[in-house]
């Protein structure tokens, strides 16, 4: 029975991907991409990766969809002087892509059995971290360096986005308020954020022992903040404000500080002392959740479009 579900999901995913490739209008393709992201989340649940499913639906489907929809609306007025590539060109590209896909399919079919896996290693070391969710343990204890560097990558991407504003607008605010705010949107932006914040705090807290965690919670916080800004209830902040920059940097800075503290109180960089691992990890997660929410929200908001208020 679940085989039928798997086959149906895969058929839908491939059909949506083909539609995205061939749809004439960008807006249709992006809406199909949002649906693709949501169905992909279901696919991840079939792969027993619930944390990944939450992240894919929130970040891959939701936030990316909002980002692309806003960009498409901004670019809709441009002329599309489409120079479509020639048929021979497309056929060669199609053959090349088919070869890549077949190569990957061969890799999937020829997986070694017994499969190489790190699950027993993670299971053996899970108790030392005090956490119950193995994915959170891997993200914040065993492979904490990856997560720290990923935060730095997020900050670099944000600086890259900010740097695309014209020079005279540096430090200003993005422009998120639409020309006309429908009444239901304003109502939703008043009613939903308190529940959204509650859900985000819950997802962060329960991520220690059950599927959830910082990225998913941070994304929900970013979504609530974006909703408030998109409905015009609050203006987007000036990007040069010190408070905003402290919030952005606070999570990674705390992570780095606790990492260096590991030299003093444990074995080395990013090592946690026995018994105090869980409080440190939860503290890092709390700061990271707020920072991730701010970074993701500002990534969607985009570069400055108004001069900074003096």
């Amino acid at each position, binding site marked *: 029975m679940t085989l039928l579900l*798997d086959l149906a999901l*895969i058929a839908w*995913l*491939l059909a949506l*991907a*083909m539609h995205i*490739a061939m749809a004439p209008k960008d807006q249709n393709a992006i809406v199909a*991409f949002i649906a*693709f*992201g949501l169905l992909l989340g279901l696919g991840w649940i079939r*792969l*027993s*990766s619930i*944390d*990944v499913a939450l*992240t*894919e639906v929130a*970040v*891959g489907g939701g*936030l*990316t969809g909002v980002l692309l929809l806003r*960009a498409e609306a901004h*670019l809709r007025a*441009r*002329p*599309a002087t*489409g*120079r*479509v590539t020639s048929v021979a060109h*497309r056929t060669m*590209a*199609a053959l090349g*892509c088919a070869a890549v896909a*077949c190569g*990957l*399919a061969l*890799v*999937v079919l020829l*997986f070694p059995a017994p*499969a190489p*896996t*790190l*699950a*027993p290693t*993670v*299971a053996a070391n899970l108790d030392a971290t005090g956490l119950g969710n*193995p994915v959170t*343990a891997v*993200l914040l204890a*065993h*492979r904490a360096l990856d997560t720290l560097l990923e935060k730095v990558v997020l900050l670099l*991407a944000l600086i*890259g*986005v900010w740097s695309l504003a*014209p*020079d005279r607008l540096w430090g200003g605010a993005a422009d998120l308020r639409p020309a006309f705010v429908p009444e239901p949107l304003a109502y939703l932006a008043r009613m939903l954020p308190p529940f959204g914040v509650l859900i985000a705090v819950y997802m962060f807290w329960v991520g220690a022992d059950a599927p959830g965690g910082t*990225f998913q919670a941070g994304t929900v916080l970013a979504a609530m903040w974006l909703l408030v800004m998109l409905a015009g209830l609050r203006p987007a902040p000036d990007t040069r404000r010190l408070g905003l920059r402290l919030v952005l940097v606070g999570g990674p800075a705390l992570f780095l500080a606790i990492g260096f503290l590991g030299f003093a109180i444990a074995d080395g960089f990013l090592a946690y002392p026995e018994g105090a691992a869980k409080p440190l990890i939860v503290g890092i997660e709390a700061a990271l959740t707020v920072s991730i929410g701010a970074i993701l929200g500002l*990534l969607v908001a*985009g*570069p400055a479009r108004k001069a900074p208020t003096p």
Partner: protein
Amino acid sequence: MTALLNPATLFGLCGAALVGIGLFVVITHPGLLRRIVGFNILGAGIFLVFGAVARHGAGAGFASDPVPQALVITGIVVAFSATALAVALTQRLLDLTVCKTVQAPPQDQPRRSEP
């Protein structure tokens, strides 16, 4: 044959197909925004292959190997930040050059100065 019908293999094959489709969109589509969507489909396909590896490596009481899952979560967030930067670059490029498809500008068109 029935051994092939477990979720890991099926979704791994789906991921391989998505990689092919995404790569085709990135290479051939004239519109820049659609290429960014194709890049995301390509990424989704790669992550699905990762997910198949994770599901295949189940053991020790976990239904799926947690290390590839953590890598995929990191990858999804980094892919989103790359998409955000690409979208901002596209908007800036098109603010400066007017057209929204990839096309070499005619040689006699003077470069617009920054507004």
